[in-house]
């Protein structure tokens, strides 16, 4: 525990750690206020084709809808904010020369990697928790609660009492997805001697995979099931009825497996690595 505390202390002593929290602290209220001001138009636009067939009653613009929209932005900027810290954990110490201090201590390299990995996971969890709390608390304070309408292949309407657990579960799933991103940049960090490389590489991989997934070509359709980014969007499954539990578990399992593989590669690489910095 001492060692994990030391790692977390180091993480939270660095200004870059707060960039993520600052970005969320700015972005979440911005989206909430924008929705509060202009949300009704947004909803009218989204439902314009359905209004002929359905009669919508009640307050559709509420804190839950705002949180749902914020959740959808998770995959845009949060991976970068996470890579900023987890990509720095090994490479940053190599660049500053402090890795020598750590590696010459009576602690195995495997343990050192595991402690840093645990610190990366803790940081990611703190960031997602902050995002979840900020979006839910602020959304409810500004716009109150209400039913949630989700339009996907079909229209789902969740009653007010049925929404909160779905949002919390979706944020929970989002955390697993972001742990996968953190593990990837942490793995790249073990190969690098400065933190710029792992951050750029992580973003390159995620953007490339998302682009491959988005283009509907038969070649890409074959690859798609093997890309971890395919499973990152499965948080949406919590907003279906009946709940596709099998698919949720499958996505969680695939992401978990990726985390395990990334961590194993990190350990093997770091154990063999010559510390030349």
């Amino acid at each position, binding site marked *: 525990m*001492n*060692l994990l505390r*030391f790692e977390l*202390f*180091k993480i939270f*002593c*660095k200004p870059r750690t707060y960039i993520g929290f600052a970005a969320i602290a700015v972005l979440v209220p911005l989206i909430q206020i924008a929705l509060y001001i202009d949300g009704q138009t947004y909803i009218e636009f989204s439902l314009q084709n359905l209004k002929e067939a359905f009669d919508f009653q009640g307050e559709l613009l509420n804190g839950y809808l705002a949180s749902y929209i914020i959740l959808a932005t998770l995959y845009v900027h949060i991976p970068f904010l996470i890579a900023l810290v987890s990509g720095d954990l090994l490479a940053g110490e190599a660049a*500053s*020369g*402090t890795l*020598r*201090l*750590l*590696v*010459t*201590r*009576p*602690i*195995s390299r495997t343990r050192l990697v595991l402690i840093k990995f645990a610190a990366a996971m803790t940081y990611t969890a703190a960031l997602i928790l902050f995002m979840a709390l900020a979006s839910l608390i602020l959304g409810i304070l500004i716009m109150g609660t209400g039913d949630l309408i989700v339009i996907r292949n079909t229209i789902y309407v969740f009653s007010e009492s049925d929404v909160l657990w779905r949002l919390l579960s979706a944020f929970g799933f989002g955390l697993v997805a972001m742990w996968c991103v953190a593990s990837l940049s942490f793995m790249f960090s073990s190969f690098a001697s400065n933190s710029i490389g792992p951050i750029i590489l992580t973003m390159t991989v995620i953007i490339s995979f998302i682009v491959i997934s988005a283009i509907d070509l038969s070649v890409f359709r074959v690859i798609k099931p093997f890309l971890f980014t395919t499973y990152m969007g499965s948080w949406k499954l919590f907003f279906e009825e009946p709940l596709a539990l099998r698919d949720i578990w499958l996505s969680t399992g695939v992401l978990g497996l990726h985390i395990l593989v990334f961590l194993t590669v990190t350990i093997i690489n770091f154990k*063999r690595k*010559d*510390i*030349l910095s």
Partner: protein
Amino acid sequence: MGKTPVLEVRGLRKSFQDFEAVKGVDFTVYEGDIFGFLGPNGAGKSTTLRMVTSLINSTAGDIRIFGLPLSSNREHILSRMGILVEKPDLYGFLSGYDNLSMLSSLNGKRASRQRIEEVIHMVGLQGREQDKVRKYSQGMRQRLGIAQALIHDPEIIILDEPSNGLDPQGIVDIRELIIRLGREFKKTVILSSHLLNEVEMMANRMVIINKGQVTVEGDVQELLGGSTIKVTISCSHPEQALKIAAETTPDVRIADGQLVLEIPKESVAKLVSKLVANQIEVQAVVPVRKLEDYFISLT
């Protein structure tokens, strides 16, 4: 009874792709040694030290520390070693005190406040220990780097260029500290330095590495000529002084108007008295760096 070897290096090799940086190095460090580790730039000195401290893996060869193979006893061995390799990079956003406290926790047990203060005093950082390390001068960082190597009271201390960045007083302080570590605290110190006169003053044994191989290993005094000392004497009548000195040693000559001679250490004072008694004004007696001559002749 012979001295106990605490570090034995046999047939150590390291290749980086096609380049062989260390080509079968052998040397032994005994308990209580202050061991000079010398070599010109690019000789393989740092690579060897990095292998001994487990920073890099060897391509071939054997490193035994405290009689145990390093490869299979890494954590146990490192718990008994204090290491400062190359420049002392510490956490700039932490104070000197917090750096020592945090780093000591990686040794298994966080050092007590008393131990941290003791080490801070040893390296002469008292009064500045609460300052952030980013505000430290290079010399202060060097002192803190040495402190972190001493914090867990190790048996072997490896110091790579410990005088780097220090002012003349700092160099003297660190030299005295290293000598104290060896004589008073009975530590084994492995010292890599390019300041050859420093090594000459501190080390009892040494190894010189050149082009990835050991050129020489042994007792410093034996290698440098034992009980004699090489000095230059600036005086008023060099020709007359030469004749007087020649009565004490045959190894005497005049160079640049100064007397250059090698004589037994205990004879220096007698010779100076003799010169003064013969109305020769002695302006300076300067020891010549014998290790420097020796080093240059070998590398």
